[in-house]
Each structure stands twice: as C-alpha cells, then as structure tokens.
C-alpha cells in the first residue's frame, strides 16, 4: 500500500505539473483597433488549449468562430478565456462579430 506521504507528494507533484502545463497552454490574443494580434496564432494540435483574449479596445467585441464552435462576448478593456480543442491539425478561422470587416484571424493547429 502506498503511504500517505508518498501519495501526498505525488498529488503535490502532479498538481504542480498540472499548473505548469496549464500555463504552458495559455495562448494570448489581443484585440486592438478592432483587429486580432496576432492574426494567425499557432497552437498545438491534439491538445486542449486555453485562449486568453485581451480586448484592449474600449468597446465590446464578440469573439466568434464557426470552425471552433465558440462565441463569447468580451467587454471593452477586459480579458476572457476560451478553451478550445483538442483540435485536429488544420486552420480554424475566427472573427469579431461586432467588427467583422477588420477583426479576422485564425488558429493554426499543428
């Protein structure tokens, strides 16, 4: 039987590892002047990925993607997280619904 201390140590180690992995999986998208920066964001395929979207405009934007089946309103000057995947390799378009003419981008999963 595994001793409690070993068990505790492995839980701590795993959760540290987990948080490290979670941090490594954060991908930042910035909305500025109704454009996404970067407009093309590489992400790993086959993994659940956390997009952190920072809307630096004063106005709200709706992050929307038919390819990723995601829609989320991000009020002005706030950050929001959107989890996507695990994605097969490929390109996934997204856009800002409130400024569709300029706010265009894609995730490139590989």
């Amino acid at each position: 039987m595994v001793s409690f201390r070993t068990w505790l140590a492995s839980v701590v180690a795993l959760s540290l590892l987990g948080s490290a992995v979670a941090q490594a999986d954060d991908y930042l998208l910035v909305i500025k002047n109704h454009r996404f920066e970067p407009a093309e964001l590489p992400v790993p395929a086959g993994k659940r990925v956390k997009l952190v979207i920072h809307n630096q405009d004063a106005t709200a934007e709706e992050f929307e993607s038919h390819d990723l089946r995601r829609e989320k309103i991000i009020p002005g000057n706030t950050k929001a997280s959107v989890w996507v995947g695990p994605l097969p390799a490929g390109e996934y378009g997204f856009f800002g619904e409130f400024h569709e003419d300029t706010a265009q981008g894609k995730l490139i999963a590989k």
Partner: protein
Amino acid sequence: MLGSAVIVFREVLEAALIIAIVLGATRGVAGRGRWVSGGIAAGVLGAVLVAAFAGAIADAVQGRGQELLNAGILLAAVAMLAWHNVWMSAHGRQLAAQMKQVGHDVSAGAKPLSALALVTLLAVLREGSETALFLYSLSASGAGSGSLLLGGVLGLAAGAALGLVIYRGLLAIPIGHFFSITGWLVLLLAAGLAANAAGFLNQAGLLPAITQQVWNSGWLLRQDSWLGTLLHILVGYSDRPMGIQVVFYVVTLVTIYALMRLFGNTGSRTVPAAQPSV
C-alpha cells in the same frame, strides 16, 4: 450604417422568429397580446441590465458566467416550450374546436400564456443584451449617433418585419392542422435551443464534446449563410455539430414528443403523424 443594421438584424432575428412562433402557438387565445408584449418589455429591461453588467457576468464562476447564463436561459426556454406543447397536446383539439365554433378568441387560462410569455422574455433577453452591447460599443467608438440610431432602427424593423411575415404565413394554415403544425415548430425550436445550450455548456468545460464534429454539411448549406441562419434558429440546423449537441437535440425531441403522447388525449390525434423534413 448598413453594417450596424445587418448586425442588429441578425441579433434581432432569433427573438423575432421565436415571438412569431409563440404568437402562432397562442392563436385565438384571449389576452395573449398583453402577455407577449409584457414578455418583450421585461426582456428588453433584462437585456439592458445584462449588457450593463456584462463584465461582472463574464468574470463570474471562474470566467464561465456568460456561458452558464446563456445555457440557463436556453434551457429555461426549452422547459417552457416543452410544457406548452404538453399542455396543448392535452387541450389543443378542444381549443381549436371551440375557436371554430365561436369564431373568436377563447379563454384558455393564464398558465400556457405565462409559459410562452416567459419564452418571449428569455429570447429578447438573450438576443437583446448582445444588441445593446453592440450598439453601446458603436456609440462609444464615436460613430455618428444619428447613423448609428438609424442603422439600429432599420435592423430592428427588418427583424420585426420578417417575424411578422413568418407569423402571417403561419396564420394561413387551416385551423384544423394549425396546432399540430405549430406544435411541431415548437418541438423543433426547443430541440435546437437545447443543442445550442449544449454548445455553451461544452464551452464552459462542463460537458464533453463527445466528438468535435459529427458531420460537415457546410458544402451543402453553410450555417452562416442566411438560409442556414434561419434554419439554425427555427429547427437547430448546424453544419458541423458536436456530438453532445446531437445528443441534446435528439433527447429533447424524443422526451417532449413522448410527454406529448403520454399526456395527449387518448388516441391522440393532436400529435401529427408525419414529420416535416428538417
């Protein structure tokens, strides 16, 4: 201006179509105008509140507030639509017969009306809050307030007009088939909203996708085309649904249908025999 009109139209469309179906489903019921317009007014008020607190809502529940609110609104609407259909399957035939007999509105009691007024409220709340945020966002970005207002009003008017067209189209259905057809419309609408809710619950990380993409019918009909949007609202069409969405759709459809059969009149003729093609 035209751009803002199109966006407002798209946001208003879902609420307008749902209200058209609700008005159809309550055809001939005395007092429905008051209930439905009360639902719209309360929905607008709620939408402004939700828009004002959008930041706080988005941050709530570890950043899942918006998804949970959306899923909650959608599932509440599904429950109300289901309840309405079950009630109608028990009383619909009687109601239609009564309407034919007296030739004017009949009193059906406040219960089914309150359920559908709530559906109206929820539809306006969800779509209206996005419209309010969008219009606020435009006015804050310094677009001319005159053209902004005009675009918004145009979009709103176009959405309402399309709702009216759909409603008038519904009224053209002969009364003998009317409630079975609106019953099917409500049933498919509820299933589509449930699938939509499943999408939000998956986005919140609370439900697995099962599979990311069950099929891809985008080559046939893109969901973001106008027809695709219309069918998405009315019957829940999706060109690339997740597994969990298909499960929610089918389970909702089968459950409501079974309840309608269960509570319907014996030998229930109010339940239509033929399923319209989706």
